[in-house]
């Protein structure tokens, strides 16, 4: 009896202690503080040195700390002044001269001037530069046309290109063109990515690995001061956990909400934002060999796949149906007259019969994940079913993303008939130039893994690249799009709409077509 009594007493005592501990621990769990914006990021940044990183996840932090010579005009992908107040382009399109804003300093007090701009580009492009070792700079090729950067005077900087290169301005607006304080590079060397120093509306405070990056309002900012005192970026790699944090009030804003989780945020407590971006999700068709060497079969694939069902049911409305190779986010260069291939299985069957390839066996490369690939496995399965419905026997081979790129980038010849792919770019030139030209076949170092070739398309793209007039470029790109749509080297599937959720304390927030996260105007109570 005694032992049972003792046990009972001990049990009660332990329970009380545990309960007490629970209530002390749980009662103080508070919401995020006022005037501090907490953002749920999808991963830990690699570095906060704009020249050294490639991921949108890192860019989302960078554009709040740094600025470039130019930027994207809010709500568009057109280039607008930033640290440069104006610029001139020479007749032949090989010299760009920028006039810089006066009286701006980096967060460490170093002056922003033409020498600072020159330092940044020399560091990235010139292998003999004393600070080139602070790299590697994986996207330096964005500026590979730059032959020389000259500081003409304190507030004038000139870029000399080795050939006319029209995307130069929009590449400058890309985060790779953000400018770092030369003094910070000299002081921190290869660790400069952990001591980011720019001219932007927020200045860096601390970076605790895997916990947070904190930036404070820059009170000396040359433009309009930021709307919140501080922003905290929290890396939460698991999408379910990110959703749970948002629901529990641990973060104020999250990006890249999984489509299936959107329904959880359909209340007054939350606001869902959407913005179509410069993204296109497509199927590369092997035009060199097999059934897809015939244009009719490529068109048949475009008719056979139910793109509406893919974007609405598989992607739950987080994407729109794509019409051609250029996403509509490039409003100035987009051909509005193009309509997507309609879903018409009967027509697809007729085309297949005409080409005499009914019942053909096809190999389809599918990836498990990867940047911008949305929900590749489910999409691959749905596509397989659509193609089966018109009598094509599709065999799926699934690969992990890095392996997948290793298989697809060297070309599909001898391996597959079709493969999934997605690109997000910053200029209408980039994707078609790298993936549709004859000179971009894999053996020539490009990404035309399906071996599409059309002399007219090659000509239009070369011409557009060397033109300095945006109107003329737009005309050339529009013509290219209608030819490519007709030739159907790809199945044009979807344009991704980026999404974000904020809670009801966050005001004045908008997503940008560039997928960058400008938080300068955001306020929070």
């Amino acid at each position, binding site marked *: 009896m005694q032992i049972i009594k003792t046990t009972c007493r001990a049990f009660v005592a332990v329970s009380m202690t545990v309960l007490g501990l629970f209530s002390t621990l749980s009662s103080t769990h508070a919401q995020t503080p006022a005037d501090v914006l907490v953002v749920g990021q999808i991963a830990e940044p690699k*570095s906060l040195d704009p020249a050294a990183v490639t991921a949108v996840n890192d860019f989302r932090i960078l554009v709040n700390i740094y600025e470039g010579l130019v930027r994207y005009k809010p709500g568009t992908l057109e280039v607008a002044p930033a640290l440069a107040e104006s610029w001139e382009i020479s007749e032949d399109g090989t010299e760009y001269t920028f006039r810089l804003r006066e009286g701006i300093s980096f967060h460490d007090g170093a002056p922003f001037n033409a020498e600072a701009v020159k330092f940044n580009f020399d560091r990235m492009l010139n292998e003999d530069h004393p600070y080139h070792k602070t790299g*590697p700079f994986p996207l330096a090729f964005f500026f590979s046309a730059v032959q020389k950067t000259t500081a003409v005077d304190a507030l004038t900087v000139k870029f000399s290109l080795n050939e006319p290169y029209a995307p130069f301005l929009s590449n400058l607006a890309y985060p790779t063109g953000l400018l770092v304080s030369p003094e910070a590079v000299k002081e921190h060397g290869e660790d400069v990515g952990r001591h980011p120093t720019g001219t932007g509306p927020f200045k860096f405070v601390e970076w605790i690995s895997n*916990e947070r990056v904190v930036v404070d309002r820059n009170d000396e900012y040359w433009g309009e001061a930021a709307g919140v005192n501080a922003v905290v970026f929290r890396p939460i790699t698991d999408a379910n*956990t990110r959703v749970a944090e948002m629901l529990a009030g641990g973060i104020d804003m999250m990006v890249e909400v999984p489509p299936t989780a959107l329904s959880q945020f359909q209340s007054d407590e939350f606001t869902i934002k959407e913005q179509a971006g410069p993204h296109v999700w497509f199927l590369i068709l092997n035009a060199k060999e097999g059934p897809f060497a015939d244009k009719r079969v490529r068109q048949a694939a475009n008719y056979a796949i139910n793109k509406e069902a893919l974007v609405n049911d598989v992607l739950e409305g987080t994407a729109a149906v794509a019409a051609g190779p250029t996403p509509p986010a490039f409003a100035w260069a987009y051909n509005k007259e193009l309509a997507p291939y309609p879903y018409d299985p009967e027509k697809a069957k007729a085309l297949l019969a005409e080409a005499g390839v009914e019942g053909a066996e096809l190999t389809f490369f599918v990836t498990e994940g990867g940047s911008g690939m949305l929900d590749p496995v489910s999409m691959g399965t749905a596509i397989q079913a659509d193609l089966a419905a018109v009598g094509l026997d599709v065999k799926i081979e699934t690969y992990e993303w*890095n392996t997948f*790129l290793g298989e697809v980038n060297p070309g599909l010849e001898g391996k597959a008939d079709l493969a999934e792919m997605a690109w997000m770019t910053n200029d209408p030139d980039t994707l078609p130039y790298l993936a549709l030209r004859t000179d971009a076949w894999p053996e020539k170092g490009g990404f035309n893994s399906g071996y599409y070739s059309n002399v007219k398309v090659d000509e239009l793209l070369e011409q557009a690249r060397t033109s300095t007039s945006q109107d003329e470029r737009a005309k050339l790109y529009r013509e290219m799009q209608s030819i490519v749509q007709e030739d159907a080297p790809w199945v044009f599937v979807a344009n991704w709409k980026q999404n974000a959720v904020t809670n009801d304390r966050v005001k004045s927030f908008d997503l940008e077509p560039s997928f960058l996260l400008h938080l300068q105007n955001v306020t929070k109570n």
Partner: protein
Amino acid sequence: MAAYILKRLISAIPVLFGITLIVFLIMAMIPGDPATAILGAYATPENVAKINRDLGLDAPLFQRYFIWLGNLFTGDLGRSYSLNRPVLHEIIERFHATLVLAGSSFVLCAVFGILAGVVSAARQYGWADKAITFTVLIGISIPSFFLGMVMILVFAVRLRWFPVSGMYAIYGGGDILDLLRHLIMPALALAAVATGVVARMSRSAMLEVLRQDYIRTARAKGVKERKVILGHALSSAMVNIIPVLGIQAGFVLSGAVYIEMVFQWPGIGRMLVDAILKRDILLVQGGVVFVAACYVLFNIVVDVVQSLLDPRIKS
């Protein structure tokens, strides 16, 4: 005893050496490389070659292995390309977090597992035994990551008792209370399975001992039941329980990978998963060798403790 420990330590050297070779070869063999991971869609052969040159990956395979191994002996694990900082700094920082999580889970599973096993055995077929056996079965059957997700939904999202993820609060945290608040759910989720296993093994180990003649003699002599159970029986049963604890320590350490992902705990498991996906070769190699070394060391400690309890084992 010292000779025994020395012998065990020496026998660990070829094991660790083999681990370095295996992890190096696996990282070299898996498809995809850091350059492709960095460049993504922009991975032209030309760009890839440039990145490989910058990262020193253009040297022949075995030359790279011996350079890495040589640096390893001097304590230089290289620089992580994906985090842009020394591998050793990252590992030490992350291991601290894993140690807190796995350590507290281990303590939980040892204390509650043994306690449950002892009570169960002492009250064999009684209601306490049945209740414990049933609970243990549930604990063993639920995958820990799933238990973690359910706990997040119930205690963090619905009841808002605990924070969803992380190790410290973003603002106004950083003290021990804050740490406990963040630790409680992941530690419990991680301990669940291990506790069940320890409880089962302790129960059977105890029952084995309780059947022995000297226990009957002790009872016949009129020794108090509590003393029989805790004094006579448990100390003998511990010889069989400790190896189980050793295995569970390893289990908790490896199980921490899932739990760290679910609760975004900044530990070494999450670091390794990220590093593998980004093909951060040096970080993966350094992390795996470090964890393996800890594991080997822990096994030696378990063996030594066991041999202290039962001198027969040494011979």
